[in-house]
């Protein structure tokens, strides 16, 4: 039976009544729901209108170093004079607040939005780490039954507020650190449907290759034009060894670029000292001539070229 045709008790036999469907009736219900949703989108657009390039750092796979790449890339560009912000979209497993040296910093509460704190190299940032008591898990108020039904909506709304209600001001780059899970990439694209680019972070691991390939497919399906691959933990360069030591048995970085046709924007070696500095809130980025530093220097160069350079969209 057609969904818009229903037999109603009392109608003449054989005369099904036509009931208009949702799209056939006016939106003027007085509920103002559509207006509010459109208003939310407008606030996001208005706030992001002063940002030159919004770039997501994604993977789909956890543990590949997205946050560390975000932090080090952000400071690398900031030290070149760019105005940079970072948004930690990993609400449940935040780490960018710590990595950017923002722990203990406060937001300034203004009527037009909250002013984010300034972290390493002058980078602005927001993360749930700055909003929660130490070691407290992220939990939302609400009825205990069927939490799964509304948690996703709540988290999407919070991310929307991170975009629309933070006084980002004029930025050259806003980097958004996307949590693991290809669904989280989709959620980001719902909020920012036309990012300047997405950096896909992977490792040589074969397992990472499988997951990251799916993320690339999702990004391409969504029409994202600028996608770059960042191969993280490509090897361990010990001062005592002539050749880099492999951390993984696979060759996933090369295989990803070959299978997808995407360009490798940077290969970043594993460096325990640089990792420790990043974890401690002082990401070194491209600050020295180490292999790690050179890798981020090259990545910063490539990002500037790949998204059209600073202020491209201003």
């Amino acid at each position, binding site marked *: 039976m057609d969904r818009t045709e229903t037999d109603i008790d009392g109608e003449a036999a054989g005369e099904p009544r036509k009931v208009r469907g*949702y799209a056939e009736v006016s939106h003027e*219900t007085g509920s103002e729901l559509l207006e*509010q949703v459109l208003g939310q989108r407008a606030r996001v657009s208005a706030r992001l209108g002063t940002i030159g390039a919004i770039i997501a750092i994604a993977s789909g796979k956890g543990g590949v170093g997205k946050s560390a790449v975000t932090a080090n890339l952000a400071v690398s560009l900031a030290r070149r004079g760019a105005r940079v912000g970072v948004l930690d979209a990993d609400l449940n497993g935040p780490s960018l607040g710590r990595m950017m040296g923002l722990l203990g910093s406060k937001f300034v509460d203004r009527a037009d939005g*909250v002013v984010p704190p300034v972290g390493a190299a002058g980078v602005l940032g927001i993360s749930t780490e700055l909003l929660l008591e130490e070691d407290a898990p992220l939990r939302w108020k609400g009825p205990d039954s069927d939490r799964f039904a509304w948690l996703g*909506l*709540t988290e999407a709304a919070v991310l*929307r507020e991170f975009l629309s209600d933070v006084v980002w001001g004029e930025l050259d780059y806003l980097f958004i650190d996307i949590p693991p899970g290809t669904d989280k990439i989709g959620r980001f694209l719902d909020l920012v449907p036309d990012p300047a680019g997405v950096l896909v972070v992977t490792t040589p691991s074969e397992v990472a290759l499988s997951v990251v390939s799916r993320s690339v497919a999702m990004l391409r399906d969504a029409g994202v034009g600028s996608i770059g691959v960042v191969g993280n933990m490509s090897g361990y360069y010990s001062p005592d060894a002539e050749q880099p030591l492999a951390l993984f048995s696979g060759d996933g970085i090369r295989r990803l670029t070959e299978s997808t046709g995407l360009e490798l924007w940077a290969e970043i070696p594993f460096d325990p000292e640089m990792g420790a500095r990043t974890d401690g809130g002082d990401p070194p980025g491209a600050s020295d001539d180490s292999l790690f530093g050179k890798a981020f220097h090259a990545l910063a160069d490539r990002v500037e070229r790949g998204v059209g350079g600073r202020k491209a969209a201003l």
Partner: protein
Amino acid sequence: MKFLCLTCDEVMAFAERELPGDGTLTVIFTCPGCKREMALLTNPMETQLVTSLGVEIGGRTVPQQPMQQTRMGLESPLEDAFEAPETPPAARGPVTWATEATERLEKVPRFVRGMVKRIYADYAMEHGIHVITPEVMDRARSDLGLEGM
């Protein structure tokens, strides 16, 4: 979500919203043709779905405050995550706070205090009130449906 009066074939119009305070929601719609009324009743989970969307059926009673959903929704928030601007906005109008109202405001968790203070101040200005007292705060809560503030 829309409701169609099958008798008149007209979209029913929002009339009234009630929040009893137990997590449920009552929304009354009226048919503009035959004036028949109906009530949408939601359980706490269904109410939360609407809240999670960041919308209020029937329209907002007060303007959305910055990061309102985040601040109202978080359990275990860091109380001093937000601080007031060094220079308070000068163009807020001649609204002052009675001592009792200030004391009551001090009991609001710091995480949301600035936001709540702005809501009361805006309410007072809109209603031509120059001094915010606990009674004004009660009236604002009632008028604006500010559960939990």
